[in-house]
């Protein structure tokens, strides 16, 4: 009889059930999508923050001081030490290699252009094809400095072609497609580079071109690394030499900027890796703010969804006081009447919740793809939690209305004097 009552109620009151079910579905969809976005936003924004450029720099251990003023390098190429280019692919073998978004070597050399004018030629990777074991990857300035803009084409890494900085090109009166003589060799200018930084006054060429000018094969002055890191905390700042056993493992296996620097020093011999504080230090605060904001907004969304579901359930029940009166008049106990309505709420919550969860997962994917160009996946673990919340909210919404309905005198209910 109990089952039949519930079943018939669903069969005969399709409109009411559809209304309540829609409210639950929509509420759960919004809640699921918001939870998924809020849990993933940290990762997503962390990736987006990489548009601020490299956050780590690797220099030779025995290096002399930089002599750089306003982007002009005054250090003679014979001075100081170098890193070895052949060590670079080993970054791919690091513990946190998946967090390395990209890297670019730098080898600045002073060259004379016609008229005794000295400019800096920067040798680097544009988008060099490298292999480590079976893995292939393409590090270079194009991936770690997204704000570098080229009017013309990017040169190939295995060519002698170069880019001219914007201001230098204007000063020399050269443009893309021209040829330029550097140390007696002609180089084709494939494009004009605009960065808003020191490179606007420089020539940018492939690493091999710069090494040829210095006369040292495989030499790299500095290595810029862009890595996705975990915001720094007190533990991150501990000196790794003072950590013991499991503590050291925990430090080593957390993607702090310090531990990534430590691992870079391990894979590149005779090197010193350091965070670029301007970029690395600010990431944490910006990330914390955005995460905090999303958390608050998610709470607001959950509140709004819970209210919508409760209100819909309460309204649906209010309309059925006549039914309650009839059942009570026929001798049904308060508990059994309440049980019927709770069973209905349970069914609605589970059905609406499941559909809503699927809808919310789709919504989260659409948000992820359209805003961040990457997937926001909804964890399956979320499903029981979301259904649980849906149940709780629809019970809470029904409870008050059920209580009032069963306490109402059946006579008045049947006469319609509610």
């Amino acid at each position, binding site marked *: 009889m109990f089952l039949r009552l519930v079943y018939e109620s669903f069969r005969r009151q399709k409109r009411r059930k559809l209304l309540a079910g829609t409210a639950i579905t929509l509420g759960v969809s919004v809640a699921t999508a918001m939870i998924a976005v809020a849990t993933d936003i940290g990762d997503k924004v962390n990736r987006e923050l990489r548009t601020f450029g490299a956050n780590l720099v690797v220099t030779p251990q025995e290096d002399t001081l930089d002599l750089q003023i306003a982007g002009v390098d005054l250090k003679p190429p014979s001075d100081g030490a170098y890193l070895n280019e052949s060590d670079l692919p080993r970054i791919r073998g690091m513990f946190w290699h998946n967090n390395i978004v990209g890297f670019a070597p730098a080898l600045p050399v002073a060259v004379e252009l016609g008229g005794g004018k000295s400019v800096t030629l920067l040798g680097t990777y544009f988008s060099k094809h490298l292999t480590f074991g079976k893995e292939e990857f393409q590090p270079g300035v194009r991936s770690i400095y997204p704000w570098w803009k080229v009017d013309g084409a990017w040169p190939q890494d295995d060519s002698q072609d170069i880019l001219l900085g914007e201001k230098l090109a204007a000063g020399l009166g050269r443009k893309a497609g021209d040829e330029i003589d550097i140390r007696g060799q002609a180089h084709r200018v494939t494009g004009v580079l605009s960065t808003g930084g020191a490179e606007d006054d420089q020539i940018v060429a492939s690493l091999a071109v710069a090494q040829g000018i210095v006369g040292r094969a495989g030499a790299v002055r500095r290595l810029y690394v862009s890595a996705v890191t975990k915001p720094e905390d007190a533990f991150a700042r501990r000196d790794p030499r003072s950590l013991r056993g499991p503590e050291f493992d925990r430090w080593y296996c957390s993607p702090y900027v310090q531990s990534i620097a430590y691992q870079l020093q391990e894979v590149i011999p005779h090197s010193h890796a350091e965070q670029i504080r301007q970029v690395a230090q*600010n990431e944490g605060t910006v990330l914390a703010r955005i995460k905090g904001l999303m958390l*608050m907004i998610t709470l607001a969304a959950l509140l709004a*969804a819970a209210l919508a579901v409760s209100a819909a359930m309460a309204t649906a029940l209010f309309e059925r006081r006549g039914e309650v009166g009839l059942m009570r008049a026929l001798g049904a106990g308060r508990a059994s009447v309440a049980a019927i309505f709770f069973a209905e709420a349970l069914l609605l919550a589970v059905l609406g919740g499941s559909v809503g969860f699927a809808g919310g997962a789709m919504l989260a994917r659409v948000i992820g793809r359209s805003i961040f160009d990457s997937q926001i996946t909804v964890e399956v673990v979320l499903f029981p939690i979301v259904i649980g919340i849906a149940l709780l909210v629809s019970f809470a919404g029904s409870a008050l209305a059920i209580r009032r309905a069963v306490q109402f005198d059946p006579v008045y209910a049947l006469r319609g004097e509610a």
Partner: protein
Amino acid sequence: MSSRVGPVLGARRARTPRRSMFLRMLVRAAMLRRGRAAAALLAMVVAAAVTTAMLNLYVDAQAKLHNELRNYGANIVVAAKEGQSLSSETLQKVQSALGERGMAVPFAYVVARTADGQAVVVSGTDLNQVRKLNRWWSVTAWPSHEGDALIGARAAALVAPQGQAFDLSFQGRIVHLSSAGTVRTGSSEDSRIYLSLEEFVRWTGVKPSTVEIAASGSPEEVNATIRQLEEALPEAEIRPVRQIMEGEAWVLGKTQSTLLVCVLLIILTAALCVLSTLMGWVFDRRRDFAVMKALGASERLIGGFFMTEAAALGATGAIFGFAIGVAIAAWIGRATFHTPVVPRFAVLPEVLGGSMAVALMAAILPMWLLRRVQPATILRGE
């Protein structure tokens, strides 16, 4: 009762029987069903509060994040033309063009020699301002006395490994400096020595050649500032720091789109909540509707009655909700950004209009459904 009222009052009553009856019905309807009216009002208030809070937060979060991203340092650089330096007049012009919208810090550079002939870059600047501009600098101690220098971490190993005093020479002029502390940034600052600008000028006679500016505001405002500086300073080069400006625009753009989608979803949910509650309320009163119709009220009168009721509910809910929403937004602002969100009264008309529109929709829909039903059917309770 009417027999006892005076002729003047009676005439007024005769002229306005409808209006007073209308008002009385509105008030009595709300009073008699206090529970349901309160539930509908509560739904309205909560929805309006959530909407207000979200709209306030959406507008304010942008400004707050701009401020947060200013911690990345200068976004505009003013540089002297090659081989020249900026006059003190130029610095004043920068300050006056900038006004309250940012801060400007001058830098002067020379290559000096240490006692054993090593070349090192020395920079003169306003150290108090640098401290505010470049908050990421990790400094052991800022110089406070005359003759104190701030030494880059790598330069320190060379000139003052034990933190002792040292000499620097530039074009034959020697200066005696003590080391106040070291600075570590991970870039070229690590190889430099920083002095206060007055001391630097006294020693070298070299004037500042660059001014780093952190201009606040949205990208459009920063671009306007750049244009203003270009007009004011034709003798210098004004350069936006694209690394900072583009990174900022990118991250903010993404955050804003996410916020917008979330805020819209929340407002939609809140509106649905109100719609379903109010519709239930109006639907529940189909008996009143039938009685009025049976007593000969026109469709227009009944429609007007229910719609006025809904509009009044919407307006009341919106005003209470607005007040609560502003408080919620202020609290969220304090919790995430540690500064309160300034209430924006500009969103009040939007919240008010939206609430009333939703309430009216909730009234019209059930009426439209009931329009063809015979009053007798409803009164019989079918």
